[in-house]
């Protein structure tokens, strides 16, 4: 038998391999150089001069940046909790009940997913400056309220989508059995429905945490001088110049996001195999 590729073994053809290599080089080389040069012992950021952790040390001593990071994590955490509750309720509402205007509500719930970010940012700017002015002098976690509200508005529809897909595989007879055995609405919900939704809830939580942590445009329009988030702070640094310190800050965020995604995939694999 010759070792020539079969007709459909496209991946053994060299132009195909070259193309794939080129595309992945295009996708990854900027990110890999960014990470590598956060450890580079030179301000110039182009020639390798030796390994250093100086920029990470500087990063941890940069109070403004650390505050922005704490803000981002707090916002992402609160957003995730609220989005989970609202998203799960929305999914159950669309899956379980029939009621007038259901189609309209269903359509509206998918709107935040498709509306351009800039339009949503502008809407939040108008809302929080002209209609419900969010006081700027509130104590710390409360001052982040406007950003959290804006984030929940675009995160919970994603959670609803994920949870609803999971509910489609729920066997309603299980819940009926629980009722027949004397469970109340609440007990049936807590002991039968929630355990079934669990994988989707975990996926939805990680999704909304990442979405919230990553958001720049909408936050840019809702954040004030005292409520700077990590991406907004990095943006102002990027505008200023390309420095190894920005590389270090970016690397931290990349590592965090990739770790979250890895967790999510592990969780999905587990729930698929069980």
């Amino acid at each position, binding site marked *: 038998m010759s070792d020539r590729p079969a007709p459909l073994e496209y991946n053994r053809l060299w132009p195909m391999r070259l193309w794939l290599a080129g595309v992945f080089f295009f*996708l*990854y080389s900027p990110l890999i*150089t960014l990470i590598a040069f956060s450890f580079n012992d030179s301000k110039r950021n182009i020639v390798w001069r030796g390994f250093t952790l100086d920029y990470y040390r500087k990063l941890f001593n940069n109070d403004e940046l650390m505050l922005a990071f704490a803000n981002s994590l707090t916002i992402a955490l609160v957003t995730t909790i609220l989005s989970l509750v609202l998203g799960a*309720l929305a999914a159950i509402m669309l899956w379980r*009940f029939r009621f007038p205007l259901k189609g309209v509500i269903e359509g509206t719930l998918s709107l935040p997913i498709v509306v351009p970010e*800039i339009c949503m940012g*502008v809407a939040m700017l108008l809302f929080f400056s002209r209609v419900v002015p969010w006081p700027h002098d509130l104590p710390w976690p409360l001052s982040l309220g406007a950003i959290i509200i804006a984030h929940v508005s675009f995160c919970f529809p994603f959670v609803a989508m994920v949870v609803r897909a999971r509910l489609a595989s729920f066997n309603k007879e299980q819940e009926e059995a629980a009722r027949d055995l004397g469970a109340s609405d609440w007990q049936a919900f807590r002991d039968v429905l929630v355990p079934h939704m669990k994988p989707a809830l975990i996926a939805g939580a990680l999704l909304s945490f990442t979405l919230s942590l990553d958001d720049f445009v909408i936050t840019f329009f809702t954040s004030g001088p005292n409520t700077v988030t990590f991406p907004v702070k990095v943006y102002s640094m990027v505008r200023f110049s390309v420095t190894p310190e920005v590389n270090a800050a970016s690397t931290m965020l990349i590592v965090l996001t990739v770790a979250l995604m890895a967790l999510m995939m592990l969780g999905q694999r587990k729930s698929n195999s069980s």
Partner: protein
Amino acid sequence: MALEKQSRAAFWVTVLPPTLWIAVFFLIPLGIVWAYSFGHNEGLTGVAITGTFDNYIRAFDPLYLQIFGKSIAVAGLTTLLCLIIGFPVALAIVFANEKMRPLLLLLVMLPFWTNLLIRTYALIAVLRTEGFANWTLAWFWNQGSTLAALVGLQPFPAYQPLELLYNNFAVVVGLVYVHLPFMVLPLYAALDRLDKSLMEASLDLGAGHLRTLFSIVVPLALPGIVSGVIITFVPALGAYLTPDLLGGTDSQMIANVIERQFKRANDWPFGAALSFLLMYATFAAIALRAYLTRGQPADGHGI
């Protein structure tokens, strides 16, 4: 009946929170933008909503029409490049073996989960005058120069760095970089559903690879291609960060003009009108996708 009452309570507890949230913190803000688009500035901070269409008429001023046209052209070019670059990638994933497929999918998805701002910043470091692209080109230039001197030719003049950043080229590169996964995933979903025996039949009957591609694969995968094109085009059209950071003074897209109305120019009613025009364009594209892909199974990528 007690059960009846309990169910009714459960209904309201389920329906009210998400519905109220979406109404108060999404529909009302958008509604205000919509109302503002029919108003005009009054004094320094006031806006009078008078029902005027002036803002929309102003949006059709050649200056803004040109920016709209340019945004559509840039987003269109981005989409086309993503399609050309992404199609072979999707094909490779479909025909990869069981072990490689999840890995390739992950490799496509991973940058997608990296912060947009960081990806854009990474590109700045590559494209700027003293960046890696110019550095590599300069290296080749100098090697060529040395080589030329060795064979007795005149050495090249000193390397002039190319202007790769702060222009339309950089914006298109940045948008392609960011939006490639949007194209590859729907293409992959469509190609995966394809009946491979049809391709084998075409090859057996003597058609070449290219002919098989264009007369068998492309027509059968057309709904997926349409899906990918629109899923890529919509966010590219509304892109703010990429043109803002990578573009020059002449590469503003519609989102940048909107931002300027709300921040520096302080003409909120006009910015509101532009926002709604962008939103109508987005909805039109999504409706077109629904129309063109009707009757197809959902591809499982809700985005």
